[in-house]
């Protein structure tokens, strides 16, 4: 029998994970992406380069903290060209590695773009200028998302940055205004802040990181408020124009008063939207909903059963790890397995300092849905490891069903929260209860103990805090 022929459009973490698994399962796989190597936004212009820079930011901040412990490094000398080059090395190392993995798996990698001629036929326009029309058994859409912007504020200026251009580190500005207090804005704002820029944030809602539980955000908000120049909540940008070597920004506060401030640079980071333009979906039965997402079932099949959609174009949350899992699920379904994408928890991590991470139920969701829960919190001030790091500004909390004691949600704020959350995700997926976490020996002295101790808090038996059960 002929091998099943699959095309994956888009080589991001969803697309390449799908393509690699398909190849491992013996399918004939074509992967189409604009870039030279697989990687997508995540590796080229997102997760990876931003984490490289955030690592640098953390290092700079830690050298400053050390002065309080008798170690003085002095002011850092920053060679921006070298820093940029190092970040680019990280990116090319990762994407180059994916290119090799793709070749080793004998994947037909085409650098170009694809559009549907009909439900099973793609026209592929290659970067080389050639084009070809190919027929496939199954096609997976993994075209991801693009940066959103506010059209009325789109001025033509190199001083107006988006997440992509901000990662290029054009210079270290004296001042930077970040529009949008979500994770992208706060992460990139933190990088520039550490490099020496006076960073301000304007956020439309009453708090930073809308959607995250306030008792997690509070630690980050406190640190950002003292490190950044200004945090403007309930405020929005109503006008922008370039004036000389800066951008003059009109900001409207909650009470309706507007003020005009000049910033060297402005970073617009208000989110991302799914990208389905130019795919020729009108030649298929694929349905796109009002908000631009491709409608899929739990097997990631679109309305056109031979076409699948995964990752950012298939709905929220727009996160790389969700895309990869969806990609693998779609391929397993094509391979004939009875599978479904139905995770109990998709972790979210904000890589600021401190980091914020959560999985499963949030308190906001619990309240909206009238879910009975108990929040068991362990403040890091009581953690030995946190104290040795000089970082007691954190908390670990478990949301627990009071009747079954099942872990419904986990939220963590503090350095390394992004690593710690994985235990929470596993607990939720395994249907673990508070006793399971309490009775699992965690290594001392580590931050991971806070997960165990918050389970102890639920029973009113935490070793390191005294809070008897009511």
């Amino acid at each position: 029998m002929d091998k099943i022929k699959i095309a994956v459009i888009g080589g991001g973490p969803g697309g390449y994970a799908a393509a690699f698994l398909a190849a491992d399962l013996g399918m004939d796989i074509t992967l189409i992406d604009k870039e030279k190597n697989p990687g997508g936004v995540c590796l080229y212009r997102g997760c990876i380069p931003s984490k490289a820079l955030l690592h640098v930011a953390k290092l700079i901040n830690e050298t400053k903290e050390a002065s309080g412990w008798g170690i003085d490094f002095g002011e850092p000398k920053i060679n921006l060209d070298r820093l940029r080059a190092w970040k680019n090395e990280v990116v090319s190392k990762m994407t180059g590695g994916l290119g090799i993995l793709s070749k080793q798996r004998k994947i037909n990698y085409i650098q170009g773009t694809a559009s549907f001629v009909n439900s099973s036929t793609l026209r592929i326009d290659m970067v080389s200028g050639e084009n070809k029309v190919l027929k496939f058994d199954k096609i997976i859409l993994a075209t991801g998302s693009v940066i959103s912007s506010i059209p009325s504020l789109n001025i033509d200026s190199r001083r107006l940055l988006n997440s992509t251009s901000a990662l290029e580190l054009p210079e270290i500005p004296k001042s930077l205004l970040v529009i949008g207090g979500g994770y992208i804005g706060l992460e990139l704002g933190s990088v520039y802040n550490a490099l020496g820029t006076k960073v301000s944030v304007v956020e439309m809602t009453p708090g930073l990181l809308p959607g995250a539980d306030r008792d997690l955000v509070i630690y980050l908000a406190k640190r950002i408020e003292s490190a950044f120049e200004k945090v403007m909540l309930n405020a929005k940008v109503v006008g922008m124009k370039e004036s000389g070597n800066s951008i003059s920004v009109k900001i409207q506060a909650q009470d309706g008063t507007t003020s005009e401030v000049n910033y060297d640079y402005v970073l617009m980071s208000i989110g991302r939207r799914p990208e389905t333009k130019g795919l020729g979906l009108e030649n298929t039965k694929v349905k796109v909903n009002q908000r631009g997402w491709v409608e899929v079932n739990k097997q990631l099949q679109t309305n056109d059963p031979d076409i699948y959609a995964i990752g950012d174009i298939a709905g929220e949350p727009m996160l790389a790890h969700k895309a990869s899992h969806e990609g693998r699920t779609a391929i397993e379904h094509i391979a004939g397995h009875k599978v479904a994408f139905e995770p109990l928890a998709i972790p979210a991590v904000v890589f600021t300092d401190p980091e914020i991470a959560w999985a499963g139920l949030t308190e906001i969701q619990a309240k909206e849905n009238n879910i009975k829960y108990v929040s068991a919190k362990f403040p890091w001030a009581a953690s030995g490891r946190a104290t040795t790091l000089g970082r007691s500004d954190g908390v670990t909390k478990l949301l627990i069903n009071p009747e079954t004691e099942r872990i419904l949600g986990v939220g963590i704020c503090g350095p390394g929260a992004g690593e710690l959350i994985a235990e929470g995700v596993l607990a939720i997926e395994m249907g673990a209860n508070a006793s399971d976490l309490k009775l699992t020996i965690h290594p001392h002295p580590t931050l991971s103990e806070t997960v165990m101790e918050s389970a102890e808090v639920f029973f009113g038996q935490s070793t390191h805090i005294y809070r008897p059960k009511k």
Partner: protein
Amino acid sequence: MTNEFKLPELGENITSADVISVLVKPGDNIEKDQTVIEIETDKATIEVPSTVEGVIKDVLVKAGEKINVGAVLLTVESSATQVDQTKTFTSNAEISKASIEDKNETGSDSSKGSKPPRGLKQSIPGDSTSVSTSELSIIDFKLPELGENIESADVLNVLVKIGDNITRDQGVIEIETDKATIEVPSTIEGKVVEINIKPGDKAKVGAIILKVESRTNVPGETIPSKPTVENKEINSTEMEEKPEQFKAVGGSSAGEKKPEPGEIDDQPPILKNSAPAAPSVRRIARELGVDIRKVTGSGPAGRISMDDVKAYVKKINEEREILPAGGFGFIHEPLPDFTRFGGVERKPMSKIRTITAEHLSYAWNSVPHVTQFDKADITEVEMFRKSYGLKVEKAGGKLTVTSILLKVISFGLNKFPQFNSSIDMEKKEIIYKNYFNIGVAVDTDHGLIVPVIKNVDKKNLTEISVELNTLAEKARTRKISIDEMQGGCFTITNLGGIGGTYFSPIVNAPEVAILGVSRGAFEPIYMEGIFKPRNMLPLSLSYDHRIIDGADAARFLRWVCESLQEPFKLFID
């Protein structure tokens, strides 16, 4: 009177704290020692208990703020002079507006926070428009509970359109559940401003079907009409551009199908009835075609292990084996290609037809059927029926053989309790019922429907006849509720109106017997030495042979016949 609650002393050298969360809101009734806020000092997280009691008027702190010891946290109205704020104001929106105004105006001078609500309202300039519209509120009409275990329904028809004025109890949509087609009556009156469903949709219980602009205030369901629009206008650019970001960090709302506008479906996956089982166990269950939610977990808090899934599959297989031949393990023979023999037309089965087919297959396969036939002399009954028919008709019913049989059977179920039972094979138990509800099969244009007359033993013939008439009419016009079709102990099916002598009805499991009634006819009956013309009614009793023995069935049916011949027998024993 109004009391202030201030941040108490927290300990040596502690002068301030960060508010982590505020656990109360204006309008809450608080007691002494109830925790009102959670704060964090340099040393610990502390829950601050109230020292005052009453209804909270104002909350002067919010999460994230730094507050000093002695700062006013709440103003509390003691219960004696409690003012119902929601009534003082014409709409909720004004309250929030007013309190914002108030905060801006008063700044740190928190004592002003205890101004009476009226005063606050006056501080809003130029608010006349919102006053004029505020009496109208938009009320969500949600799909009400439809009955036990029914979570959703298919929408067949939407009976109203935008702009319609609807009244209470007016049918607004027609839906089809697993059990019946139902017209859903509105509980709200007013003008329809939004319709969130269309025919063909699947509507969940609790989903918002309509938005109705109403003058009636329903507490807790009102949303202010005008301010919503205002907010939308203010934020329109951002709203269009920003939605992703908010949700993107919202983590776990993922993995679910995107809800259509109006469909409230943003529950995180962990709440979607998710079984406590590891991903590997869930995957195996899926591969085996097992609904993981049906598996009983043996672990702590019902956690489901791989062994539990295996045990479940084993149990199902064993049950299958003890079923009679042709049971559920039965493989369907493929259909021939009918078009080889002539033209055909394929039509989807209606929900009622599908359910009827599945239910009767189940009953046929699980119940070992025997049918007992007999004839009842109803000559006297017919005379009785004619002389009292008019009286019952005046009450709104029709005195029929079926209604008389309903009464007779209720006595019979009492006398022969095994006919009023169900079998629990799993537990090897027989369930005897202490109530006497009897279903009557009704032939309607859209399929077979069985309304149930409840507590037949407690009703007289007129009441039974009227109720039967009402329910049958409801069944025919698709207005019958699920409740009215549940809880039957026994079923009567009367084909006498059409003709025929005998037939063998299928027991409506988990009931254990069904009485089929055919058309009565005059026959020469040899009595008292001569042939007399007697009106003889053929009866067919199908029963579940697992619980009812042949002799019992013969006795039961004979007793029914004799009771019809000599109704006074009913009162003898």
